[in-house]
């Protein structure tokens, strides 16, 4: 209930575009006291919303606060699957992917989201640590219920990479490229990582958890030494400070569209978009396979399952589903 009231207050104040809204207008739909409204407004202020109050005039909202809170997210994501699930925001968590898995096991709806300002044990693939600083990065995970065979879930990381790239492009961040299968790079430096985890039976997917970590307002000196050469943020790339709320909204709106296609079995556009923005195809690469062996050659393309076609120096074609490209 308090969620719904906060959401309504925000929605109404936002709709009135900085003009006063009476306390009476805010309290009426819920049949609660003016004092109760005042309490909810205090709660919103604590989350970072700038709301002015006047005993006679009521309330008004200043600006468009960059607040990652369930109330603002439900508003911004209205009409998408992400406004229909659970939204959980915390300051600190071990890992948003682990939290999302927990929600999935409890039976949450597709589109449920977990966000955090800091991840203590943020993981990359195979247990690698992903760095997240206080509120500089955008760290979120979502629960999906793909109506697909487990085998086709290999396309999910490619879909997410395309969604993030296109969202950033639309907001004006140009030049983000994708390294197979799902690394996001600007000028050869990594700005984001994606970790997809699924739980399946032999022929059906129970749930998929997609985690995204994006360096947004991180300063160059905030990265640990070992990453200072290889990591980058949107702020470093553009010189501007970005709204995490805007970026998240854009990514999730794009993803909602793309998932609608994907869940109907149509990955054609997604594969085409991926091919258009890849940095891998056409280049000489060294692939380190999980067992430690290496293949050198030219990356040609991906196949319809997302696997990489690599032509080695002896002219042999390899179709790779795993491996690190460098």
């Amino acid at each position: 209930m308090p969620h719904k009231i906060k959401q309504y207050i925000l929605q109404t104040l936002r709709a009135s575009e900085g003009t006063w809204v009476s306390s009476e207008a805010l309290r009426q739909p819920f049949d609660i006291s003016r004092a109760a409204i005042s309490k909810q407004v205090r709660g919103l202020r604590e989350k970072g919303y700038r709301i002015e109050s006047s005993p006679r005039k009521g309330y008004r909202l200043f600006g468009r606060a960059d607040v990652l809170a369930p109330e603002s997210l439900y508003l911004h994501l209205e009409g998408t699957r992400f406004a229909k699930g659970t939204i959980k925001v915390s300051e600190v968590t071990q890992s948003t992917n682990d939290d999302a898995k927990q929600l999935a096991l409890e039976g949450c709806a597709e589109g449920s989201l977990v966000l955090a300002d800091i991840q203590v044990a943020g993981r990359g693939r195979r247990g690698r640590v992903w760095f997240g600083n206080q509120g500089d990065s955008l760290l979120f995970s979502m629960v999906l219920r793909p109506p697909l065979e487990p085998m086709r879930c290999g396309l999910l990381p490619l879909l997410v990479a395309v969604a993030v790239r296109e969202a950033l492009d639309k907001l004006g961040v140009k030049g983000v490229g994708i390294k197979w299968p799902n690394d996001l790079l600007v000028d050869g430096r990594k700005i984001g990582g994606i970790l997809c985890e699924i739980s399946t039976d032999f022929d059906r997917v129970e749930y998929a958890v997609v985690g995204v970590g994006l360096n947004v307002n991180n300063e160059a000196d905030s990265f640990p030494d070992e990453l200072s050469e290889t990591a980058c943020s949107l702020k470093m790339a553009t010189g501007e400070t970005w709204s995490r709320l805007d970026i998240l909204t854009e990514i999730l709106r794009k993803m909602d569209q793309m998932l609608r296609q994907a869940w109907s079995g149509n990955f054609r556009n997604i594969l085409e978009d991926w091919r258009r923005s890849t940095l891998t195809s056409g280049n000489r690469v060294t692939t380190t396979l999980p067992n430690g062996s290496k293949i050198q050659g030219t990356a040609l393309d991906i196949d319809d399952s997302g696997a990489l076609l690599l032509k080695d120096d002896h002219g042999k074609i390899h179709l790779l589903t795993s491996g690190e490209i460098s």
Partner: protein
Amino acid sequence: MDFKDLKKIIELVKENDIMELELQDGDFRLATKLRGNDPVYVTTSAAPQAPSASPAPSAPQASGGEMPPAPKVDAPSIKSPMVGTFYRSSSPDADPFVKAGDLVEADSTVCIIEAMKVMNEIKAEVTGRITKILVENAEAVEFGQPLFEIEPA
């Protein structure tokens, strides 16, 4: 076989509504299967130095069944739902999910299969005892390939 050949083959499969095709050229092997109107490619490539211990895939079995040829296993087994890489633990320095002799529940995670960086936690799906681990850590596996032998309880 080069990329052009491969493309040509895939085109031919699509155009002629071939339901299933297997092809081998040296140690490159391609298997494709059509599902509905949407072709699904099941493909593998050997590691650069094909380990001499693993025999080259034999001729397709005549059964025409659902799965590509896999080592013949008599005991009940846990099979891979996808093409990918087999991992016995959640990270390189973690303990394996299961060892030979371990008892598992239907919802116990027994391994991870990774493809395109999707980590797929594989469940035992039956309660029982793991009797044999059939694949080495970090090796490539095929769709339907048995990963563990299990003795149902």
